[in-house]
């Protein structure tokens, strides 16, 4: 539970940092830290049901900080988590290069799905097609940032699980001492 809370807080901080970073960096060249954290959680977080809840929760937080429809990022982050989990099982995504390629591909699919979803509500398909042309640079930036974000999330996971394990061991020691 504590580990999940820590990861959620980390995801939230990543989102807020991304929003602040967007003030300084042109939009397509600002890494999607929120998405990358969800991908990393998909790779390093074990229990699936709580992983889905984490991904959807972070997606909803993204919706609050974005102009998207409420639930749009929630659904896509859920699917991104599932894709990362599946990809992690079929491929070795723990290396920097495969992870970068995966993040780039996922960024493109994510942008297409997001724009397509919005286009179905606003009915501006031509604009959607035009804006998708800008996705390349964004995918590249995400590919570069993905290994670093994954490293951070992995360390966070191992740190919080070590902490939990140490407490459990202490509790066991205390009981046996009694």
């Amino acid at each position, binding site marked *: 539970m504590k580990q999940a809370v820590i990861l959620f807080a980390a995801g*939230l*901080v990543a*989102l*807020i*940092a*991304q*929003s*602040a970073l*967007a*003030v*300084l960096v042109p*939009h*397509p060249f*600002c890494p*999607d830290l*929120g998405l990358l954290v969800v991908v990393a959680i998909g790779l390093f977080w074990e229990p*699936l*049901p709580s992983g*889905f*809840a984490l991904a*959807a929760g972070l*997606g*909803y*937080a*993204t919706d*609050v*900080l*974005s*102009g*998207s*429809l*409420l*639930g*749009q*990022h*929630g*659904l896509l982050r*859920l*699917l991104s988590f*599932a894709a990362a989990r599946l990809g992690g099982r079929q491929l070795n995504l723990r290396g920097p290069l495969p992870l970068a390629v995966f993040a780039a591909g996922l960024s493109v699919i994510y*942008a297409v799905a*997001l*724009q397509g*979803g*919005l286009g179905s*509500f*606003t009915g*501006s398909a031509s*604009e959607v097609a*035009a*804006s998708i042309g*800008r996705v390349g640079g*964004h995918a590249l930036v995400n590919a570069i940032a993905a290994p670093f974000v994954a490293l951070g999330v992995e360390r966070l996971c191992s740190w919080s699980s070590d902490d939990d394990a140490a407490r459990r061991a202490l509790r066991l020691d205390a009981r046996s001492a009694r």
Partner: protein
Amino acid sequence: MPDFWRRLGAPIAFGVLALLTTITMVSDRRAIREDAADLPWWQGVVLEIAIPVQKVLLAPVDAVRGAWSRYVDLVSVGEHNDALERRIAELEEANLQYREALVASGNLQRIAAMRDDFEVAMLPSEVVGLDVSPWFRSVLVDRGRDHGVRSGSPVITDQGVVGLVTATSQHAARTMLLLDRQSAIDGIVQRSRARGIVRGRGTGELEFEFVVRGSDVRQGDIVITSGMGGVYPKGLRIGVVRSISDPGGMLLQTAVLASAVDFGRLEQVFVMLHRGPTMELLYGSAGDAGRDPEPEPPAGEPQPGSQREIPTGPTETASAPTESPAS
């Protein structure tokens, strides 16, 4: 039961969450209404957390930027100052002429009595964060419900229209920019009064769809808000016509606008706390349709405190039909 959960917990969780997100997405109505509800508490909490953290993150950057612009990058300050002084002199002259005209027409007393109606309360706010998704165009400002900001409040700068508040928490508000693809405003060409809808394209430009194919719209024309729709007051600058497309066989003609506001350098904005009336009442009998936008009407005096009051825009005469605030 634990065995059942171990086997089917993940698919059930996925299915429930996917259904939940789909339902909220479909039911989320982003149409901006005057009585639009504020964010629920759990969404408000996210905004409330975001604002102070973003301020802290941006503080060093602002400090460096401020030091650079105030103490280092002063090359063009002298020229800029001269230009501003010339501009002030021109405006003072125009102001004097307006006052003379008003006194001559006997309207001054009537105008003075209606002063409160013509001036719109403005709340200065700071942009503390941009949209976390690169595919949407909105900003977070550091003023919220406690400061009187409501969903549907127009947001402007001295350059023109910025957008519309779409969600508020106690101390923060999310503003959808004009550039967002979900944004649509009823606008008119200031010179010819040609009417149309200004839509965001999701990029740095705006699209202006004229209703009438043969409308008189030229490159360089200024497009302003028409005031219809009850969201934006009439006469706020939206943008300048950059190019006009060939209509071909289409019924509607479109133009590309450069927005009046420099969204790349958006730092300070004003939230209009209540919508002001059109300036048409003030200048209604001037008969200035078709003339150039300069000189602009006199600016109001700032009031003490955090709120400032300034008039809302240039003169207009002819009325125009509906405005759609945002889809």
